[in-house]
């Protein structure tokens, strides 16, 4: 037992070291948000802000359209996540549980779509959305993101569905519950990690996307947060790095909250170990 806990301690130390290395750039971003201007630009980089200030946060929030951009991003991301999971789950069920003509074609299409270079699609996609009058709208962006996110979600959820042994399903159905009921009670918890991974993927992909949001959204009142951030860097004149980093730190918060919300569900999936064996 003591070797076990010593081993665990060792791994924990490694884990913390890995954490420090991976998160350092993010630490750099957050610490810069608190640094006074003279420290940010100084010739000798300061590891820790010695006289921290909240001015950059105030400047960032005061810039026009900050809250509007956050709101736009949140709307887009929530709709994308919900729709992506819903649509992908349905398609994944079809792919994993049924045999039907056109299945192979659909699989090839799903994989093939992800291989299209995004840069090559910018103008054609813009033209299509302009035709449907979805340029400069949030729905246009939502549709675009769904196209990029759904293939991966379908494929991953299919993988998780396949990984669930068939006898579990059948055992559930012998009980008399319908197929969907079987899914709900027994299989959903097993799917939880997969659903978490895909929903976090959908969330972050939509949250961080830049190129298409930039091209499709022209009104500053419709912009997403990544486009709003790029305005800091777009000028040829002096850039307010402190405010840029402060804004970036702020917008990481919804992502963290979302993750904390869903990561509990992983635990839920794990503890329902009653299904094992």
């Amino acid at each position, binding site marked *: 037992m003591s070797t076990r806990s010593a081993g665990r301690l060792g791994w924990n130390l490694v884990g913390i070291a890995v954490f420090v290395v991976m998160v350092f750039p993010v630490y750099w971003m957050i610490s810069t948000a608190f640094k006074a201007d003279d420290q940010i630009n100084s010739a000798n980089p300061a590891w820790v802000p010695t006289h921290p200030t909240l001015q950059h946060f105030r400047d960032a929030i005061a810039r026009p359209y900050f809250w509007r951009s956050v709101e736009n991003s949140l709307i887009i991301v929530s709709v994308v996540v919900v729709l992506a999971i819903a649509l992908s789950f349905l398609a994944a069920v079809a792919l994993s549980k049924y045999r039907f003509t056109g299945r192979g074609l659909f699989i090839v299409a799903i994989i093939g779509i992800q291989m299209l270079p995004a840069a090559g699609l910018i103008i054609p996609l813009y033209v299509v959305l302009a035709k449907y009058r979805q340029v400069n709208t949030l729905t246009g962006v939502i549709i675009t993101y769904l196209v990029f996110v759904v293939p991966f979600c379908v494929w991953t959820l299919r993988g998780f569905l396949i990984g669930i042994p068939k006898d579990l399903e059948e055992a559930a159905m012998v009980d008399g519950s319908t197929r969907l009921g079987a899914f709900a009670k027994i299989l959903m918890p097993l799917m939880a990690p997969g659903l978490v991974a895909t929903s976090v993927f959908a969330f972050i992909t939509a949250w961080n996307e830049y190129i298409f949001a930039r091209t499709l959204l022209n009104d500053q009142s419709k912009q997403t947060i990544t486009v709003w951030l790029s305005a800091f860097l777009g000028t040829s004149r002096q850039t307010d790095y402190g405010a840029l980093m402060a804004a970036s730190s702020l917008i990481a918060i919804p*992502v963290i909250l979302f993750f904390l919300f869903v990561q509990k569900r992983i635990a839920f999936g794990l503890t329902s170990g009653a299904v094992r064996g």
Partner: protein
Amino acid sequence: MPSALGTAAATAPGLSRRRLTRRRVGNAVVPYLLLLPVVLVIGATLGYPIYNLIRLSGQKYDLFALLQHHGTSVGLKNYSSVLHDAVFWHTLLRTVVFTVVNVGLTLTLGMLMALLFVKVSTWVRVLLSAGLVLVWATPPVVAVQIWLWMTNSQNGILNSFLTDVLHVGDYFQHDWFVTPFSQLAMVTTLVVWGAIPFVTITLYAALTQVPRELVEAAEIDGATAWRVFRDITVPVIMPALLILTSLSIIWDFGVFTQAYLLIGAGHIIPQNYLMGIYLFQEGYVRTDFGRGATISILMLLIVAAMSVVYVRRMVRLGDAT
């Protein structure tokens, strides 16, 4: 009264034949209904762009044509022009090497980190996951900016860390973006850093499906960690590994934003082109959209060729059940 009898009878195995018939008819339509939403959304959005891309690749379409909404057909001339361009082949080779290095690093480090997740206490795991999500959530535009600072030749922390803390040499005012090799090395660190969280989280989710009893039984039998990994863990997480490998290949081959912004528009020259940058420069910046479409299609075919092995395995794995 008949209904009650009927209900009782329905649960008897004898009547399962009738249920099967109904289910079979229902089954035929169900998968198509399930797929319909996805097909609608993607078909309506991507149908025209893909058609347009193919058509553009056979046209000369410059700024003038853009204004007229009409290009001139040139058959396969775009293809022969690109395939005869030495820059295309050099860029392709460079991108393949770049992809192999990035995918290799991402998967190896991601796998190691996912295994680490299993070994640590819960609080460390939550800390690490939160850290990884923070990394993943950093927008590329911001990450590039942070990287530019850290590697800044005049006051970057990397130089002072190497010189004053690690004492591995004099890196005072060292410019990390002089040669294409060092430029692409910097891009690699940024891309791998940003890609690890996703790989780790997905692999960890897959690792949770490895039956613990099997692992414990094998360990009691005296199997080494490597044997346990190879014979028990890998088969279980194979679907996830295959997805991640194919996706990493696809993404790293076509990487654009991080490379273009980190190297900087002012330093982009044919010697440090990656395929994504090559497409953007030749197609968009030079407003030669026909050529850009041609390069897009070639990229699609090349990526498909690069990942076909993994994809085929993935599909076969799924069909085996």
